[in-house]
C-alpha cells in the first residue's frame, strides 16, 4: 500500500513518485508542491520509488535500483537530484543553468555554474518580494516563453545563515511557499543578470545585449543537441532583454538593490 503514489509534470515530462513511508510521503508532497500534479496514469511516465529495507533506504527508477542510503533524508536528496538531472537531460526546450525569478511582468535570470551562488541569490530575491520560477534552470520554449521549473530550493547551511533562515545539517530543502512566496507564471524573459559574488562593493551596471548571448550559451545544459537552434534562441532572446552585471558580497543587499532597480 503506497503512502503516496503521485504523478507530476516536471519540465514538461510526466513522472510518478511513490513510497510506502508516510513521513517521507508528507515531505515529498510538500517539496514537489511547485510542480503540476497529474491524476491517473500518464503514458510514458517514469516511475520513482523510495523503499525502506531492514538497513537501507533505496531509490528505484523504473524498477531498477539507483542508490541506497542510510536515512530517508539522504534518499530524498538523491531522488531530487536524480529527477533534476533527468528533467534537464530530457527537456526539449532550450535550457540554461540559471536562477530565475519574476517581479510583476519582469522575468529575471541569473545564469551561473553550480556553486556560483544562484540559489542563494534566487532565495534572497524571493525574500525581497519576487515570485519563484526556478533556482536551477531557465527553460525557454520555441515561442521564447519562459517555462517555470519550480524545483525545491536546496540551501546550504551558510546560505541559510546569510538569508536569516534556520540552517539544517547539510542542505535544507525549501519550497517558495516556505518563504511565503508565490510561483511565477512565466512569460517573456526581460532581464539577464551576470552576478559576480565576492566583490568588495555592491554595484549594478548595464552591459551590452551581446553579453547575454555569451552568458546564455556558456551556461546552457543542452545547446549541444541542436546548436544552431540554441544560437538562434539565445540571440533572439538577447535582443529583447536588459543585461546587468551585479557585483556583490551580501546576497540580501544585492537582492534589495536589484529589486529596487527593476521596480
Amino acid at each position, binding site marked *: 500500500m503506497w503512502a503516496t503514489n503521485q504523478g507530476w509534470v516536471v519540465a514538461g515530462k510526466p513522472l510518478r513518485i511513490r513510497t510506502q513511508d508516510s513521513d517521507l510521503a508528507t515531505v515529498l508532497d510538500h517539496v514537489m508542491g511547485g510542480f503540476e500534479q497529474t491524476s491517473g496514469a500518464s503514458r510514458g511516465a517514469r516511475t520513482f520509488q523510495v523503499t525502506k529495507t531492514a538497513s537501507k533506504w533505496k531509490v528505484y527508477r523504473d524498477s531498477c535500483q539507483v542508490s541506497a542510503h542510510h536515512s530517508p533524508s539522504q534518499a530524498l536528496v538523491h531522488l531530487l537530484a536524480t529527477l533534476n538531472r533527468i528533467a534537464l537531460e530530457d527537456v526539449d526546450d532550450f535550457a540554461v543553468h540559471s536562477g530565475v525569478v519574476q517581479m510583476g511582468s519582469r522575468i529575471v535570470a541569473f545564469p551561473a555554474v553550480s556553486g556560483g551562488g544562484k540559489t542563494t541569490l534566487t532565495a534572497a530575491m524571493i525574500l525581497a518580494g519576487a515570485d519563484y520560477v526556478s533556482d536551477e534552470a531557465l527553460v525557454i520554449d520555441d515561442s521564447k516563453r519562459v517555462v517555470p521549473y519550480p524545483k525545491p530550493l536546496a540551501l546550504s547551511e551558510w546560505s541559510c545563515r546569510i538569508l536569516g533562515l534556520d540552517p539544517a545539517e547539510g542542505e535544507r530543502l525549501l519550497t517558495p511557499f516556505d518563504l511565503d512566496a508565490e510561483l511565477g507564471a512565466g512569460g517573456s524573459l526581460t532581464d539577464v543578470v551576470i552576478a559576480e559574488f565576492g566583490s568588495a562593493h555592491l554595484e549594478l551596471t548595464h552591459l*551590452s545585449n551581446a553579453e547575454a*548571448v555569451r552568458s546564455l550559451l556558456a551556461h546552457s545544459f543542452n545547446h549541444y543537441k541542436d546548436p544552431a537552434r540554441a544560437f538562434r534562441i539565445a540571440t533572439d532572446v538577447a535582443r529583447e532583454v536588459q543585461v546587468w552585471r551585479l557585483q556583490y558580497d551580501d546576497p540580501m543587499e544585492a537582492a534589495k538593490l536589484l529589486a529596487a532597480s527593476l521596480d
Partner: protein
Amino acid sequence: MPPPHDHLIETEVDGEICLYDPKREKVTVLNATASDVWRMVDGTLTKGQIIDALAASYGMNPDQISADVDSTITAFQQDDLIA
C-alpha cells in the same frame, strides 16, 4: 584579405556581431570595434583599405587605428573565423 568562413552563422545583437561556428560549436561575440572590422572583411578589401575606410568613418588618421585593426584581424585568424 581572406573572407569569413562561409559555414559561420552570423547575427547582430544591439550593434555587436555574434558568430556561431557549427563545426566547432563555438560562439564568438565581437565588441563594437571588432564588429566594425568584421563588416569590412569580405574577401575583396586589403587590410590597408579596411584601415583607411574605418579611419575615414571614425574621423581619424589611419596611423591611429592601424595597430588595433591589425591585432583584430590577427585575432580573427587565430580564432579561425576567416579563411
